[in-house]
């Protein structure tokens, strides 16, 4: 067998593929919340592990970008490390753990606590782009429902939650209406993060590789979390504060610290937490 010294293009994907992705992204930005089908490529990471986000990131990265990758809000979870390692290896871009220093942030399951700016892009990894999928498995059917803006199914689901449990029993991947038109999955972020989607100064892009869909929330777009007048949207609250930095307004992870089930609560956003601790020391 002949050994070929194969050279990968900057950021892995060839330029034609990047162009295809950017065109799809432009369409997504032009129709906020609409799921744009795209020619998702097979990536050297497994489906379900961020292949959509990676393709969006690859299409956007330039040599001067500074990339941050988080999973569960943390920079040092193994999958985040792996994706960051992939891009520094294949694109040689600078990486950072500081939200404020990044030009492009790829995330799974969280939006950073630190407010984002107009010159930043947030790329979400999306496992299931279709918010109606658990209610209607047929794709041909859900596309029709979106075309007709017929979201009765979801309203009935939320109503039944209230009738049965007294609450809307969705705590993450909480459905939103983007720009008053498309029902959209915010990806499996906790509903705690939903308010950060509304009129965000940063462009938010969503990539679902396995399902081959892209969508976007352009800067300053109205994003409403679904609710009823007598059951307004609420986010999670803790009786605890972060045990490391003392924050009372961040999303907290619950950690079991011994075999008697003792818990401690810490910030899920590791950069936010360590920043606060540094400030406290100063």
């Amino acid at each position, binding site marked *: 067998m002949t050994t070929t010294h194969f050279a990968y293009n900057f950021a892995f994907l060839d330029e034609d593929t990047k162009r295809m992705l950017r065109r799809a992204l432009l369409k997504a930005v032009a129709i906020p919340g609409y799921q744009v089908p795209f020619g998702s490529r097979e990536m050297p990471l497994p489906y379900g592990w961020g292949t959509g986000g990676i393709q969006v990131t690859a299409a956007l990265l330039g040599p001067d970008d500074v990339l941050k990758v988080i999973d569960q809000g943390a920079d040092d*979870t193994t999958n985040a490390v792996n994706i960051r390692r992939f891009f520094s290896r294949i694109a040689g871009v600078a990486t950072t753990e500081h939200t404020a220093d990044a030009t492009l942030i790829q995330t799974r399951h*969280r939006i950073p606590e630190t407010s984002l700016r107009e010159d930043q892009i947030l790329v979400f990894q999306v496992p299931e782009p279709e918010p109606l999928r658990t209610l209607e498995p047929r794709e041909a059917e859900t596309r029709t429902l979106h075309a007709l803006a017929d979201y009765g199914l979801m309203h009935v689901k939320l109503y039944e939650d209230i009738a049965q449990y007294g609450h809307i029993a969705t705590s993450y991947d909480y459905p939103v209406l983007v720009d008053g038109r498309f029902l959209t999955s915010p990806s499996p972020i906790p509903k705690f993060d939903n308010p950060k989607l509304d009129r965000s100064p940063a462009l938010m892009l969503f990539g679902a590789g396995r399902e081959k869909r892209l969508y976007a929330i352009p800067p300053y777009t109205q994003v409403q979390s679904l609710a009823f007048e007598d059951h307004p949207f609420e986010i999670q609250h803790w009786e605890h504060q972060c045990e490391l930095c003392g924050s009372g307004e961040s999303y907290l992870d619950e950690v079991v610290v011994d075999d008697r089930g003792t818990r401690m609560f810490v910030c899920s956003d590791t950069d936010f937490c360590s920043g606060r601790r540094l400030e406290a020391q100063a």
Partner: protein
Amino acid sequence: MYVAVKGGEQAIARSLELLAEARRGDQAVPELELAQIREQLRLGVARVMQEGSLYDEDLAALAIRQAAGDMLEAIFLLRAYRTTLPRFGYTLPLDTTVMRVRRRVSGTFKDIPGGQVLGPTYDYTQRLLEFDTTAVASVAPADAPLPPNMPRVLDLLDAEALIERIEAGSDPEPIDLTREPLMFPADRATRLQNLSRGDEGFLLSMAYSTQRGYAESHPFAGEIRMGEVDVRVCPEELGFAIEIGSIVLTECQMINQFHGGNGVPPQFTRGYGLSMGEGERKAMSMALVDRALRCDELAEPNYAPAQNQEFVLSHSDSVEASGFVQHLKLPHYVDFQAELSLLRTLATKHATESEAPAQSAVVEGSAA
């Protein structure tokens, strides 16, 4: 102190070392050569090429070795490589009637023009473990070579107008599923493309289900043939076709009963399967599933899983399925935390309403 998620980078590096060590095994045993895999594990190589959608025996052998024999991982490796390859052009449609046949059987006629040819098959091996076989079999040459052009069995029925006709030119240019997303409803060419990349085990089960009453299609194996087919391209600057090589294919044409409907008279219908290399199980399964998926076109009741194109086509790909099933091992702390707090709220409410003493699922103390 809280350290649970720290050190991901180091952990990955150590894990890669352990993997390399485990893959190599006992270093006193010589490492497998790619030629050994290519020559002696040829059916595994064929499956990896087929589902990896890349016809390259050496690369498939490399992937199998790197994946330590895990076929789905090898398929994934090949796909991840394939995705980076540029497209120079597309081949002309392959003509399997001029296949250099090495195996060809029909379950519908006792004798057929060109004859039944068993070729290399496991069908009649009796499956006894051969504990001491190192001897190389010598093959006795045939009395006469096989005819170069074997007519398809289904064409014999076609002459009598007993089987549905596929009109020349009725088959539209297929889309490339690795470049364009699968959309529903999908036409037959797109469905076949999806099935050909689909997991053999999944297709086998789906096909099996059609034989057990879930979309019974009364199939007969009209013809299965395996052999080499020439691959030709027609470069624009030349304007005529040139041969660029040949590949081994297995083709299966099923014949299925059809009682008529949708304006079509009672006749036999076709199910089609094609696989790279020797892949008879795959080709036969594919042909059965292909036929089941034609239910809407033939106005048959659509009720079984194998007839549901969204169900079959969305779940056939092992790389997609394997990735998504296994992504559950990634951290979901944040979502789980969200569910925990919701469940506590609901449990408290339930306890208050039923006036039963609340289970103390309450967090006690903390360790700083």
